[in-house]
């Protein structure tokens, strides 16, 4: 009865027999435990907690008090909320712009001339860089007096006076869109390139033999065959909006007089600058509804195959 026999003893004392399938299930569930734990803790529970929080009022000390629908009523009295909602949708409009530019670039780079791989990497590089650093870079470029963009525009004779990029509400929105388009074009470019390369060359041969012009080949062969790829771009475009928080916060910090606030920056400010955790939970719920709706729409577009 030494310590070496202890494991055998344990097995004799507590005989456990599971069927093959049950043993497999047990092992499978064991393997899922870490992933599911983190997912439940950081996705499911916070989502449900949002609902709870939206009916409460929380102070910095952590005390919560039940206030019913008061936070929801605050929605209607909040002037920034409509602006934030509008901006959230407006900045989603950078996705079609970037996809169109990426489509043109992909058609060009698909011709496989020497060096097209280098160009592909050059266009892709902004996507993996830190949005904070990119925002810092563009912030100085957009400066009204002494910024290089105004300087270049004036040198080219396109404008007479300096554009106040970051101190006028509409120009600030445009600047956010410009930076976002610049950053994500490379990403869409490589997705569309992958999609283009999946189109077999024979189809183009057949179309050319049948007498289709270049424009007709593009409209009736390339575009329809690219539809699933463009659907992927739409879905993925939603994901790229995640980094808009960094961009808005660092570039305009919510813009001149809160005109470039998006829902997520307003949520952050309500919670951590004003301490209204309850109200920010309400905003988070609204944001979730919008994003989930957008994801479902994107999945629907993507699943429309051409087969």
């Amino acid at each position, binding site marked *: 009865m030494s310590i*070496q*026999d202890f*494991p*055998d003893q*344990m*097995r004799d004392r507590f005989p456990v027999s599971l069927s093959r399938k049950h043993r497999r299930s047990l092992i499978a569930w064991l393997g899922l435990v870490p992933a599911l734990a983190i997912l439940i803790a950081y996705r499911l529970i916070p989502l449900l907690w949002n609902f709870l929080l939206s009916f409460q009022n929380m102070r910095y000390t952590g005390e919560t008090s039940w206030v019913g629908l008061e936070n929801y009523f605050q929605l209607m009295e909040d002037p920034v909320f409509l602006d934030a909602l509008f901006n959230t949708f407006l900045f989603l409009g950078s996705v079609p712009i970037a996809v169109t530019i990426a489509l043109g670039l992909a058609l060009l780079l698909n011709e496989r001339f020497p060096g097209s791989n280098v160009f592909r990497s050059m266009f892709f590089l902004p996507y993996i860089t830190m949005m904070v650093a990119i925002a810092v870079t563009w912030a100085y470029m957009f400066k009204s007096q002494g910024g290089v963009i105004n300087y270049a525009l004036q040198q080219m004779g396109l404008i007479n006076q300096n554009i106040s990029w970051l101190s006028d509400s509409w120009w600030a929105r445009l600047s956010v869109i410009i930076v976002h388009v610049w950053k994500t074009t490379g990403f869409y470019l490589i997705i569309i390139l992958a999609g283009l390369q999946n189109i077999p060359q024979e189809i183009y041969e057949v179309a050319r033999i049948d007498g289709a012009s270049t424009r007709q080949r593009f409209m009736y062969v390339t575009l329809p065959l690219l539809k699933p790829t463009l659907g992927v771009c739409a879905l993925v475009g939603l994901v790229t909006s995640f980094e808009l928080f960094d961009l808005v916060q660092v570039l305009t910090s919510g813009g001149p007089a809160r005109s470039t606030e998006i829902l997520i920056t307003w949520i952050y400010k309500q919670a951590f600058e004003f301490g209204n955790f309850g109200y920010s939970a309400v905003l988070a719920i609204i944001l979730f509804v919008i994003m989930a709706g957008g994801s479902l729409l994107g999945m629907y577009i993507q699943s429309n195959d051409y087969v």
Partner: protein
Amino acid sequence: MKDSIFSTLRQIRLLFGSLSLRDLLVNRLVLVIVVTLVVTGSVQVFASANNDGHFSGQVTNAAGEPVADATVVIQGLNIRSQTGRENTTTDENGYYEFPNQTDLLEFRIIVTKEGYESTVIRYHLYFKGQNDQIDVTLHKSE
């Protein structure tokens, strides 16, 4: 169950057995890290050998002759502020020196003497307290 514990240990040894030391050491990532560490280390060594903070130079006039008794003022520049000024005068050969400037990184040197235009030079070192020198040329004032 005892067997299973032993077999697990055997398997772990199998897992790591195929990882040779060479694979671990000779690859691009390790190379980059090693190069970075070596460069950083050598820069540190060089800096610590030369950071007594001894700053000096010679003041000459446009013709190349040394200017004695010129007032040389050194003022450190921080990002938003300036430190106090220290001054000294050049000796008969036009040499000046500021010892013990171990906190100096970016600064201004102002050289003045009667009959000459006062000259301001903005300068920076590569690490705090670097031993360095600037020679200044004064021009006669009109």
